[in-house]
C-alpha cells in the first residue's frame, strides 16, 4: 500500500506522475484510453480539412491549410508518443482505431461541404478543442501534460486563421455570407457535443477528476465555450442556430437549448454521416503505405550491413 500512498501524495501535492512511477492499473488504463482517443481524433481530423487542400481559393489559404493539417498529424504523433510511455505499442493503438475498438471525437464524422466549413472548423471546432485542452496542460500525467502544452501553443494559430477566413467571407458577397451562415448552422451543435455527455451521464468523469486527469466537468467547459463564442458570432454577423440561446443575468452566463444526445449516441456508435468513409480512408492510407515502411526498413538493414562489413 506504500506505493498507493506515494501516488496519492504526488497527486495531493499537485505534482506530476511520470512514466516509470507506480500507478493504479485503472489510472493507467484511463490514460491510455483517453490519450489514444485524443491521438486518433487528431489523425482522423486531418481528413475533413484535407479534403479542401486542392480546392483552397488562393495559394495563401492553401499554404495555411497545409500547415494546419500537418500540425494535426504532429499532434497525433506527440500524443501517440505520450501513450507509449504507458507501456502500449503504437501499432496496437492504430489497429484498435482501424477495427473500431477505440474511438475518436464524433465531430470528425461530419462532412465539410463548403469552403466556409474549413473556417468554421477553425473557429468552432478548434475553439472547442482549445477550451477542452487548456486544462489538460495541467493533467497529472507528465508526458500527456507536456504534449498538451505543445499542442495548445499551435492550436491558437488554427483558431485565428479560421476566424480570419470567416471575416473575409463576412466582408464578401451575399452568397459568401449565406455560405458562412449555413456552415455555422451545421457545425454549432456538433461542436457543443465535443465536450462529451452531460455531467450526470458521463461514465468516466468522476474518477478522472479525482485523479486530476480532468480539471473541469464537461458541462462547465461547454458553458465556458458558449459564453466565449456568442460575442464572436456577433463580430461575424452570424446567428447561432438555437432559439433558446439567451443571456441569463442571474447566472451571469448564457442559457442554451437541449443538445440532441440521441444524435450524439448514434455518431459514437458509428452511424454518423462520415464514420465509414473516415475509417476506410485511414485504413487505406495505412495499407497503401505498407511498401514505404518495408522499403525504409530494408534500406536501414542494408546500410547497417554495409557499416558492419566495412
Amino acid at each position, binding site marked *: 500500500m506504500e506505493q498507493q500512498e506515494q501516488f496519492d501524495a504526488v497527486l495531493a501535492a499537485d505534482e506530476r506522475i*511520470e512514466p*516509470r*512511477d*507506480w500507478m493504479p492499473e485503472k489510472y493507467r488504463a484511463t490514460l491510455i484510453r483517453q490519450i489514444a482517443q485524443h491521438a486518433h481524433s487528431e489523425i482522423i481530423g486531418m481528413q475533413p480539412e484535407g479534403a479542401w487542400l486542392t480546392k483552397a481559393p488562393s495559394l495563401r489559404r492553401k499554404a495555411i491549410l497545409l*500547415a494546419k493539417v*500537418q*500540425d494535426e498529424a*504532429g499532434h497525433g*504523433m*506527440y500524443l501517440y*508518443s*505520450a501513450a*507509449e510511455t504507458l507501456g502500449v*505499442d*503504437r*501499432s*496496437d493503438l*492504430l489497429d484498435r482505431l482501424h477495427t473500431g475498438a477505440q474511438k475518436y471525437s464524433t465531430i470528425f464524422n461530419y462532412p465539410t461541404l463548403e469552403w466556409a466549413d474549413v473556417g468554421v472548423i477553425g473557429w468552432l471546432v478548434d475553439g472547442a478543442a482549445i477550451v477542452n485542452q487548456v486544462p489538460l496542460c495541467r493533467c497529472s500525467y507528465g508526458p500527456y501534460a*507536456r*504534449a498538451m502544452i*505543445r499542442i495548445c501553443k*499551435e492550436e491558437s494559430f488554427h483558431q485565428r486563421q479560421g476566424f480570419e477566413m470567416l471575416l473575409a467571407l463576412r466582408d464578401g458577397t451575399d452568397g459568401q455570407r449565406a455560405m458562412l451562415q449555413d456552415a455555422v448552422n451545421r457545425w454549432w451543435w456538433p461542436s457543443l457535443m465535443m465536450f462529451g455527455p452531460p455531467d450526470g451521464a458521463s461514465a468516466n468523469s468522476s474518477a478522472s477528476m479525482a485523479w486530476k486527469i480532468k480539471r473541469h466537468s464537461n458541462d462547465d467547459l461547454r458553458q465556458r465555450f458558449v459564453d466565449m463564442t456568442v460575442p464572436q458570432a456577433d463580430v461575424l454577423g452570424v446567428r447561432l442556430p438555437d432559439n433558446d440561446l439567451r443571456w441569463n443575468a442571474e447566472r451571469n452566463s448564457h442559457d442554451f437549448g437541449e443538445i440532441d444526445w440521441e444524435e450524439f449516441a448514434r455518431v459514437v456508435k458509428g452511424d454518423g454521416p462520415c464514420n465509414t468513409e473516415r475509417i476506410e480512408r485511414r485504413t487505406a492510407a495505412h495499407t497503401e503505405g505498407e511498401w514505404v*515502411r518495408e522499403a*525504409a*526498413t530494408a*534500406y*536501414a538493414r542494408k*546500410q*547497417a550491413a554495409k557499416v558492419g562489413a566495412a
Partner: protein
Amino acid sequence: MSEWPLWEVFVRPRRGLGHAHVGSLHAPDAEMALRNARDLYTRRQEGVSIWVVPAGSITASSPEEKDSFFDPAGDKVYRHPTFYTLPPEVDHL
C-alpha cells in the same frame, strides 16, 4: 510501424542552451529518425540542433529507489552557500 525502433528526441532550442527531451518517434534508422524529428518537433524553428537516441540505449535511475538513491545528498547542507553565516560587510560573498 513498431518493427521500427523507438527514438527519444532532444532539441537544443538555441545556441547557449542544452538539449532538452521533447518526445519520441519511430524510425527505421538514425538518419530517418533525425529527419522525422525535424518535421515533428521543429515545425516552427523550435531548435537549432537535434539529438536522436535509441530509447533502449538509455539507462535510467529507478523511481522505486528514488529515496535511497538521492538520500546521500540530503544531509549535506554544508554544500550550499546559505549554510555559512558571515558578517554583513562580507555577506555578498
